[in-house]
């Protein structure tokens, strides 16, 4: 276990079984930040400096006030309502399911009310995450102010390889945003009955503990890796700057975020998160009242997890 002492705690908690044994390891850390479009920031506030823009977005109240300013200039604040969902759901104080009973956190209900207001004010849309409409904001034509995401989103999903995209021109900036959160991650685990246990152990060890290999991943792929001391060191080193972020080095922000991640999960989270966003889209689109959308959510959860108690 000492070998893994440099890794972030949550990456190990995820993979720890109920009997306390570790089942897999990760080379990645996935704390999220708010990624904003520098050009739009300049247009709205006359500055694209991460510290100054960050100060305008460091609480939800300021964020929604900023959304109105951004909208007044003809931009969307965020691409879809689902962009901010993860930020709220990661910070929920209640789990989706406790004692086999479904419950909804107050923070998530706040997301519902705020998102509805945003949709009505045309500050965002109701498209699905990963859809073409969602992707649109990664290009200048999309006129979208910000996305919420971890390092892998910046590198793998913002179309930095396409010369037309905002990322290719280094047009994004990063700041901490209203709340810390995390998104996803990749873990390596050995398959049961493998013929090459020694080889696999070696790959896992090298990928997740070797500092040279890990810092190389950061330099080449703009990812954030699971190595506390190395990342804290790299945070002040300009050679680790992210090209899509216009030369900003966000590693310090990520390192601070990764340290704060506390896992609070139930086995039903994925299903509940998905169904909740799907059901609420009906409310945002004006096809249902909030109560109708909620009862649709309860219905969908009961279908997925028949053993749960849900409100009627």
């Amino acid at each position, binding site marked *: 276990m000492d070998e893994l002492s440099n890794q972030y705690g949550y990456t190990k908690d995820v993979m720890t079984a109920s009997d306390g044994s570790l089942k897999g390891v990760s080379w990645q850390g996935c704390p999220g930040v708010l990624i904003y479009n520098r050009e739009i920031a300049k247009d709205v506030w006359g500055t694209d400096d991460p510290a100054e823009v960050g100060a305008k977005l460091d609480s939800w109240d300021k964020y929604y006030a900023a959304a109105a300013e951004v909208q007044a200039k003809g931009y969307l604040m965020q691409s879809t309502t689902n962009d901010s969902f993860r930020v709220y759901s990661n910070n929920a104080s209640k789990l989706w399911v406790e004692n086999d009973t479904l419950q909804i956190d107050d923070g998530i209900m706040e997301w519902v009310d705020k998102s509805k207001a945003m949709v009505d004010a045309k500050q965002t849309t109701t498209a699905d995450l990963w859809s073409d*409409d969602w992707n649109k904001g990664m290009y200048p034509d999309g006129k979208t102010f910000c996305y919420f995401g971890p390092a892998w989103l910046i590198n793998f999903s913002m179309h930095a390889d396409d010369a037309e995209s905002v990322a290719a021109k280094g047009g994004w900036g990063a700041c901490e945003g209203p709340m810390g959160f995390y998104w996803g991650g990749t873990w390596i685990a050995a398959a049961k009955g493998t013929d090459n246990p020694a080889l696999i152990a070696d790959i896992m060890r090298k990928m997740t503990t070797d500092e040279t290999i890990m810092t190389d991943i950061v330099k080449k792929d703009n990812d954030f890796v699971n190595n506390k001391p190395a990342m804290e060191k790299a945070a002040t080193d300009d050679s680790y700057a992210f090209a899509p972020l216009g030369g900003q080095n966000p590693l310090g922000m990520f390192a601070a975020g990764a340290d704060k991640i506390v896992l609070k999960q139930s086995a039903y989270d994925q299903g509940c998160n998905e169904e909740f966003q799907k059901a609420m889209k009906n409310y945002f689109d004006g096809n*249902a009242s909030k109560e109708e959308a909620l009862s*649709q959510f309860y219905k969908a959860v009961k*279908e*997925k*997890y*028949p*053993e749960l108690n849900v409100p009627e």
Partner: protein
Amino acid sequence: MKNGKSGTIVRYNRWAYIFLIPFMVVFIVFQLIPLVNTIYNSFFEHYMSGLKEIGPNFAGLANYGELFKGGDLLKYFGNTMIMWILGFIPQILVSLILGAWFSDPSLRLKAQPFFKTVIYLPNLIMASAFSMLFFTLFADTGPINQLLTGLGVFKEAYSFMSHVGSVRGLVAAMNFLMWFGNTTILLMAGMLGIDTALYEAAEVDGATSSQVFTKITLPLLKPILIYVMITSLIGGLQMFDVPQILTNGSGDPMRSSMTLIMFLNKHLFSKNYGIGGALSVCLFFITSILSFIVFRINNAGDN
């Protein structure tokens, strides 16, 4: 009756049974056993919660009760029928016209094989790919919206996936596009089977072309029409892939485009054999009843 003759009949019968074996084996293994199994499963509580298996516990008619509670089943049946009818009406009309034109020798249509191939082509594309294509075409920032806002038809992008009418309309349009070629070929085959002497006689008697169509073509086409209607109805009740992909499995807005099979699919997330079985049994009865009604209506005038 002599012994020898009845012996021959018995021997012929034996051959018939032997020839039936391949069909019966396939039917029993792939149809009858699953059918009985489904009915049996519908009386049990049996599903998975993650990796944990719950049941099977005998539950009597509880699954059916759960299914009919709240009237959702009726709503999904309604959605299915609305989307089927919206697609089937243009499908049968267009197919009848095209079939009549293709089979009418006096029109001397050129390049018939080309057109017959082209109208059949949409059916060769996978339904899910076709649906994905429509999803992209009709996205908020997709080409259709760009075109319509560019032409000034809409002031801002129309959200096709957020309105009941447009989602159902798109599903119906896709089903129509995919199946009218197939129906045309079937109806044309039926029309070509009608004795041309009848048409000549009608022409001699001075019948107009609409009279020929309604008094000769349609009545003689009835067996094929019944076949087309019943197969299309059963296919319509089993409608799944097109709306499933178009709405990302949600059947939204507010499940107004959720079909019965999409509802069944919802219960397969938890491998819920009980409710799934009960729903399948209901579907079996609905299909039988509707097919029987179609059959009776089409045969009503015969006696």
